[in-house]
């Protein structure tokens, strides 16, 4: 039996692809800017105690929704998804772009999530430095930049599977949708940071690798400062993908936080 299933659901007239696996309390997982990277070791470990639900952002593999013009629009759509799927007690885990979407969902509806875990989340403008611009480079180059040490990351080869023409097209779709959502301001929303202060009742874990070349550390420190009940966990030696680079530590921290 496969570790996960795929199905298409209708939400507010739009078709959304959902990947689901595992059993237990629901965990909404919001994928990053290059798409869903496939079922990795951390999915396997977390799925032992959790029902993982991963919506594929519209435009990444499915038809793009012309009215979705920013991340907040997408956050609203995912709010309807949770309601329609009758997922009323849910934790959320968001990676990078997905972390931003999770934060937008939370500020839009502060009682939506029980707990929120953000991994190297975009969404606020770093106080120092810039979020690496994914657009004037190829997806492959961006992917390489996302890991601190490729040789020490056995799962790197499994990220997104084999290089193929089809994968290239999916990446181009992902990049295009990202440009539509976040070309300018780049990967952040100026109204998000002030709103995060309103999340007074939401326990939040922020994880970030101290060798992250894509997201400057100032951004996660500001995130942790902005959310009243946030805790920052720094994974030493990891880049932008601590879940694949330091899987054991990542899973341990996440499970401890969620339980």
């Amino acid at each position, binding site marked *: 039996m496969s570790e996960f299933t795929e199905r298409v659901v209708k939400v507010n007239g739009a078709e959304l692809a959902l990947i689901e696996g595992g059993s237990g309390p629901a965990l909404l997982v919001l994928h990053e800017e290059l798409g869903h990277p496939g079922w990795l070791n951390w999915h396997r470990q977390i799925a032992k105690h959790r029902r993982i639900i991963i919506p594929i952002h519209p435009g990444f593999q499915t038809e793009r929704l012309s009215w979705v013009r920013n991340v907040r629009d997408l956050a609203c759509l995912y709010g309807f998804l949770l309601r329609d799927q009758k997922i009323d007690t849910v934790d959320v885990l968001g990676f990078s772009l997905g972390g931003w979407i999770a934060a937008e969902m939370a500020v839009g509806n502060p009682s939506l999530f029980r707990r929120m875990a953000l991994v190297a989340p975009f969404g606020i403008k770093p106080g120092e430095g810039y979020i690496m611009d994914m*657009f*004037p*480079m*190829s997806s*492959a180059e961006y992917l390489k930049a996302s890991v601190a040490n490729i040789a020490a990351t056995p799962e790197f080869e499994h990220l997104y599977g084999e*290089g*193929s*023409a*089809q*994968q*290239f*097209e999916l990446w*181009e779709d992902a*990049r*295009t*949708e*990202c*440009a*539509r959502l976040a*070309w*300018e301001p780049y990967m952040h929303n100026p109204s998000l940071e002030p709103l995060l202060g309103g999340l007074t009742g939401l326990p939040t874990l922020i994880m970030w690798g101290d060798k992250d070349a894509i997201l400057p550390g100032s951004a996660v420190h500001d995130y942790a400062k902005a959310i009243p009940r946030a805790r920052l966990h720094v994974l030493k030696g990891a880049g932008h993908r601590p879940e694949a680079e330091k899987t054991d530590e990542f899973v341990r921290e996440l499970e401890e936080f969620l339980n």
Partner: protein
Amino acid sequence: MHIGYFVEQQYNPVPEEAVLLNGGFFGLSNKYFDRKTGAALYHRYIKEFLEAERVGYDSMILNEHHANPACMSNSIMIEAAILAYASHRAKIVLLGTPLPIMKNPLRAAEELAQIDLISNGRLVPGIIRGAAWEQVASNTNPALNRELFDEAHDFMLQAWSRPGPWRYEGKHFHYRFVNPFVRPMQEKPPIWVPGVISPETVIWAAEHRYPYVALGTEVAATAKMWKLYGDTAQRMGYQVGPENFGYFQKVVVADTDEEAYELGKGHIFGGSFTPTRFASLPGYNSKDAVKNYANKFYEFLRPRATLDPTDIPGLRQSFADNYAKHQETMHVITGTPKTVIPKLRARLEALRPGIFTIWGPEGPIPHEKTMRMMKLVGDEVLPALREIGKELDLTDPFQVEPGSRPLPANGQWNPLVPTQVAAA
């Protein structure tokens, strides 16, 4: 046949090595810019365009680019306005106004109207999407480029023709009050669309009955685009003629073949225009174009594996080899009037464009050499080209309204160029 003159207006004292190490002209640091030299070059290029009019060209063709030394024209409107006042006969052809990156089609409509009036109706306000790197230079969302272009175009036509004031709420542009009081001299300013054979642009131009101007593209590929244009025209219910097509030809003329050959090397100066990292921005190309490109996935992952960007002598050698090939394929035509005329005739026979542009010398060429070329072209090449144009019946858009020819009775369009070229 309409014969235009074009150059990029290069900041040509730029050290070539710096351009090569940058991977191309775009994005080269402006620390290489010298104020006084820049000022002198602007004056020089204006003088050369005016000389083009004096020696008999039908138009001065302008463009704009940003953040690079290959083209100093940063505002096509400014250049057009200067020439509108300083010239008196030749058309001022913009190839083109980059509507998406200007982000303000009302302002574009106003400025173009003003230029058309100053020139007493000599403006050809061609329009473009702006190349990929231009989206970076202006921070224009490449994924919205086509939408911005379409909307800005439709808006601009309305702004020129619809009595104001009116209100506009579009998708990307919004205006409370549209009433450009100054309207163009020409009731319907003639729009041309240049391109480097993106099929979507060819189809779009044909659907709007706008001449499509190929920017020095390879002949067989260009002929294929003529066919795509012709097929689209048939769908739209008209027969194409030479007036629907334009072609840019790089030409360098001097007193001897040897000198022209040497001066022509300015066309390969600095190598590529765009470093590869800026060439493929998300959403700039259509999904079909991406699909075609995706099949070259592995090449994409290892771009230019054979060319080491720091190997300056190696790069120069590869450009020199290419230059020799360019002569064979006539990508660059160099020589005396006597030797270039038969080559130009061959080009005109192969593509039959009603708009023919001499793309003059580029690179570190002295002003005197450009002026000498002007004289030689004016005295000998232009008269010969006019005869060839007549002989080949190369009607231009000012002689025959593009899109006004009816289809043959059987509803099938007649190909414009010999089928063997189209099929090649």
